[in-house]
């Protein structure tokens, strides 16, 4: 059903993907800040070390930070994939609620910290 050459291409692609997963694993680090974006703009930066529950976007999503992990408690989107995704705490992880145009990302860098100060 699949030709030999195609098989080789697919296997090579899979190997490249596994390699990138390995590389990503080495980049993985616990983050300090939780960056919340609405419609592409950063609307809030929270400290991962501060526990709290925050209402985002007039209630479309509820963010909870607890025990150095961030997750969405509730969402108004139909599929609730963002809620089911669970907790994130590393810089390679993110939660997206596409229908509500919300994204939660973890960051370590100063840029987000400076936003927070404002």
């Amino acid at each position, binding site marked *: *059903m*699949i*030709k030999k050459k*195609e098989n080789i*291409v*697919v296997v090579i*692609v*899979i190997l490249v*993907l*596994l390699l*990138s*997963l390995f590389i*990503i694993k080495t980049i993985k680090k616990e983050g300090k800040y939780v*960056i919340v*974006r609405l419609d*592409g*703009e950063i609307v809030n930066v929270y400290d991962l070390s501060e526990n709290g529950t925050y209402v985002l976007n007039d209630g479309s999503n509820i963010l909870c930070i607890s025990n150095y992990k961030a997750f969405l408690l509730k969402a108004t*989107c*139909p599929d609730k*994939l*963002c809620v*089911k*995704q*669970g907790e994130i705490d590393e*810089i*390679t*992880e*993110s939660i*997206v609620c*596409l*229908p509500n*145009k*919300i*994204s939660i*990302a*973890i*960051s370590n860098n100063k840029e987000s910290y400076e936003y927070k100060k404002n």
Partner: protein
Amino acid sequence: MNIKKISFISIFTTLALIMSYIEMQIPTFIMIPGVKLGLANIVIVVVLYKYGLKESVIINLLRIAIINTLFGSVISFIYAFIGGFLSLFMMFLLKICNKFSYVFVSIMGGISHNIGQIIVAVIITNTKEILYYLPVLILFGIISGVIIGIISAVILKKIHFKYEFNN
């Protein structure tokens, strides 16, 4: 476009919708955004090979529009549209080369579907971190591509399509 053709396009669109609906009943095991089986693509692949690009474009557009009107939002429509058509055109390009098997074309369709969706997510939310999920997503795209491809291949090879349209 005659009545017979319109009828067949309607039937295939309905089939695609039923596939999508069945897929919605399957509980999501993998919580990464964008991982799905894409059962409706069985219809798309079969129509692409049996009838042609125009018909598969119509069916693809109809099923994306209807499913997202019923169960989604404007955003999910854009998301599904970009993914669905990137996938369809990739498969069309591979098909006209006449060198690739059904399964391989389906795999590439699955991969491009996921890549398209991730790119939409990154652009809409302006969050580059989402790209870290790309490798996992492509891996699952390959798996679903294989499954859809095998099913489509069996249909294309074993089922006798009584009505052919002159393309």
